[in-house]
């Protein structure tokens, strides 16, 4: 690892992308050769889902590469667009009324751009409080002007929740890119990658564990697969993966382990909460085949990240005593 540290920052990041795209290419080639074979319908469905996920990973990696290669402005913009699309999907599947029109406009066309502007200009103190404080108070005010008292609290809460997850949560990813840590300048891309890898590891491990263990679910009405033991396995896997990646981060091995645990665990909780939300909205996945609206199911994929990113971001800041 010593020879890796001696490389320059851009060489390190370049190497990272070579490894990432190399792995993806190998997996894709294997998947393609496998796809020529015939198989049982049930297995075929699982395989199709795997291919779907693989495409999503490709898209994510390419976006990630573009955002790193094109500098902070474009990357912030890209995450902003992602936020926009996720929020659009969220709003589509929640019930809103005529009176909410103005507050939705506020959320989409004022809150979202301003939040990303604050990220881009690195005002991290304002960034942390803008949505939880100012927007939290502004949205009910605008909604009240909509002159519709029916289910007022519920509607306002839904909009606030959507903004919180899709805008506030997501905006912490570009914030990680821009965070200037001591002796770790211009290497935010590694932090984002660390977060994504750790969260993904927790998801995969939890999914595999719940299938393999078949424990009694904690909340059957919400998720058939979520059990405490599976959650622990997921979070601990994230911790181990995190510790193994410590050399790419500004942390020492033990803090890297703890950070991985925190990020992976909160990401899994995020996925669990998203399931509750989906059940509430009456859809199996955001989008999917049967969707009227043609949503692409982006929210599904970014939800764990939206939960993990703020927790991780603030843990990092505390750790370094900002």
């Amino acid at each position, binding site marked *: 690892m010593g020879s890796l540290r001696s490389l320059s920052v851009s060489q390190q990041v370049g190497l990272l992308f070579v490894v990432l795209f190399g792995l993806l290419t190998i997996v894709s080639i294997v998947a393609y050769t496998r796809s020529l074979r015939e198989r049982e319908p049930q297995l075929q469905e699982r395989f199709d889902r795997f291919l779907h996920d693989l495409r999503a990973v490709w898209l994510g990696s390419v976006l990630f590469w573009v955002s790193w290669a094109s500098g902070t402005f474009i990357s912030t913009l890209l995450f902003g667009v992602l936020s*926009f699309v996720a*929020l*659009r*999907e969220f*709003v*589509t599947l929640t019930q*809103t009324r*005529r009176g909410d*029109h103005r507050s*939705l*406009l506020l959320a*989409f*066309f004022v809150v979202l751009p301003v939040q990303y502007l604050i990220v881009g200009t690195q005002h991290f103190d304002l960034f942390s409080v803008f949505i939880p404080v100012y927007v939290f108070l502004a949205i009910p005010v605008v909604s009240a002007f909509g002159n519709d008292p029916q289910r007022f609290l519920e509607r306002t809460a839904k909009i606030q929740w959507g903004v919180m997850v899709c805008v506030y949560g997501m905006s912490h990813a570009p914030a990680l890119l821009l965070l200037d840590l001591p002796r770790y300048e211009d290497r935010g891309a590694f932090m984002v990658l660390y977060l994504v890898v750790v969260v993904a590891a927790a998801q995969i491990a939890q999914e595999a564990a719940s299938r393999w263990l078949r424990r009694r679910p904690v909340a059957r009405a919400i998720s058939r697969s979520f059990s405490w033991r599976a959650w622990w396995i997921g979070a601990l896997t994230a911790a181990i993966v995190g510790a193994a990646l410590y050399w790419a981060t500004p942390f020492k091995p033990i803090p890297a382990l703890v950070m991985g645990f925190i990020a992976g665990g909160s990401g899994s909780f995020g996925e669990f909460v998203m399931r509750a939300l989906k059940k509430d909205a009456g859809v199996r996945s955001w989008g999917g085949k049967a969707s*009227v*609206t*043609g*949503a692409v199911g982006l929210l599904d994929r970014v939800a764990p990240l939206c939960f993990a990113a703020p927790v991780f971001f603030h843990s990092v800041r505390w750790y370094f005593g900002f």
Partner: protein
Amino acid sequence: MKLPEVAGLCLAFIARLITGAQGHWYGSPPKAEQRIYFANHQSHFDWVLIWAALPGDLRAVTRPIAARDYWTSSPLKHWITREIFNAVYVSRQRTDDEDPLEPLMEALRHGDSLVIFPEGTRGHQADPATFKAGLFHLAEAFPEVQLIPAWIDNVQRVMPKGEVVPVPILCSVTFGAPIQLQPGEDKRAFLERARHAVIALRDVA
């Protein structure tokens, strides 16, 4: 590329950004045949949505109907409807010597496809209102033109009446199988059948 084409592409992009403008085709593939699309009408945004949901090369030959007095009242409105959408203008004032459907017939004779909203006005109920007779007369005069029902979903949430700025919410347009005027079919029966063809698409999607 000329300015109207560029403006049209921009507009279609914005419509897709805001609503997704997903077109689902059940029973009629998107082909360059002469067609009359008829759909439920809930918002000013309806036409743009159908237009954006169509594949690019069908947009050029598919024309909306615009009220002459409103859409020619300012140069900008006139330019948008004439240059981008190639709209068919109809006058809302009835005069005795003029058939209000004449401009539509003219466009159909010319080989263009049309999009019409047979309710005549924007509805607020869950089901579309009863259809006006125009669709029947067009079907009678042009039996060879395909009549394609379309259901526009969710658009009333994008831009409720009285609002100017659209909220980004995903919408979809579902196109169904073509219907035909049966020989000797009564006007009311045909219009009711057409209306049910539109409503049926709500559950398909």
